[in-house]
């Protein structure tokens, strides 16, 4: 029996940062020395390959594996920088119905033998792709922006995690972690944005991390590096590293990292803070 942990990164709403989070956390886990596989479940609209900078090296994909056209080992793309980090890409040309429940089950159960952590990047929505991504998870990271529609969609997803997963069907309760992304402390302070406590109160899911709104996220995606590998000192990278340590079971308080100001920054920007 393997000791692998399958974690789904999900949100319901699109554009909140599931793929950024999947790449950042998978890389952070790999940096900690674990064998890690990230799976893109967004069949037809894959993007995890692009965010991880592996797009030029994709040959086979999840649908090829599910259909028996390639083995898992053939489809896995090794990361350029970390040799213990792998990507199982989604298919770009087919639609989500190309994935079968049995196919996904067998892929996950085989991956459990090779890896310590399997990170499933869920598509947006609550349809087949999203339910298959969460189906075999042992834990869930729920990604929300501090914004009303995102929080509402997370609530819907929490309902699905408690009903449509194997853990739930076997009478268990899926451990869930809330990750708030694109957070702006200044706007939360002035009351223009939901604060982390508000979101935690509404969803009743323990907080695993708060990722501040950061220019470094876009810069990292431009060059095809997970933000945790692109610029380790950036606030977003530090927040993702912290969240990863909590995922690994460390009991550390949640902080919201801020931009480290250089000498000029301190002189010129100090008054604005």
């Amino acid at each position, binding site marked *: 029996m393997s000791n692998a942990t399958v974690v789904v990164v999900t949100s319901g709403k699109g554009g909140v940062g599931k793929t950024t989070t999947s790449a950042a956390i998978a890389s952070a886990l790999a940096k900690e020395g674990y064998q890690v596989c990230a799976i893109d479940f967004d069949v037809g609209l894959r993007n995890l390959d692009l965010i991880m900078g592996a797009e030029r090296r994709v040959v086979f994909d999840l649908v090829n594996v599910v259909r028996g056209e*390639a083995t898992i080992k053939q489809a896995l793309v090794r990361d350029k920088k970390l040799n213990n980090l792998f990507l199982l890409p989604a298919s770009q*040309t087919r639609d989500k119905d190309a994935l079968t429940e049995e196919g996904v089950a067998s892929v996950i159960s085989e991956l459990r033998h090779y890896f310590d952590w399997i990170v499933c990047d869920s598509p947006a929505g609550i349809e087949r792709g999203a339910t298959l991504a969460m189906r075999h998870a042992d834990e869930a990271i729920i990604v929300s922006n501090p914004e009303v529609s995102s929080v509402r969609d997370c609530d819907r997803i929490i309902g699905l995690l408690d009903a449509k997963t194997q853990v739930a069907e076997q009478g268990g309760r899926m451990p869930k972690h809330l990750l708030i992304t694109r957070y702006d402390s200044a706007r939360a302070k002035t009351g223009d944005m939901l604060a982390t406590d508000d979101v935690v109160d509404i969803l009743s899911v323990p907080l695993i991390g708060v990722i501040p709104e950061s220019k470094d996220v876009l810069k990292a*995606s431009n060059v095809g590096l997970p933000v945790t590998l692109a610029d380790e000192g950036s606030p977003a990278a530090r927040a993702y590293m912290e969240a990863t340590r909590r995922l690994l079971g460390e009991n550390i308080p949640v902080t919201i990292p801020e931009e480290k100001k250089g000498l000029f920054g301190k002189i010129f920007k100090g008054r604005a803070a």
Partner: protein
Amino acid sequence: MNILSLFGKRSQSASVAKNRLQILLAHERAGNSADAALISSLREDILAVVAKRIDIDPDAVRLEMDRDGDVTTLGIDIELPPSAARAS
């Protein structure tokens, strides 16, 4: 953060992004299903040739592709069993 950034040099990440997208989209618009089929057949052929000399695990043959603009490279990685390496 390098010394040039002190003098206000613009970050180049956007041009990297544009270049990556141009390569990727040119490839995707052309239809990329040929790649998988080609790799699959190449793999079979190479496996057959190697298997004539060495008893290898089919899973120990990895083919990797890297597309860069007009140039696509194919890497073949065959893991030889310890006994085969010595025998040859």
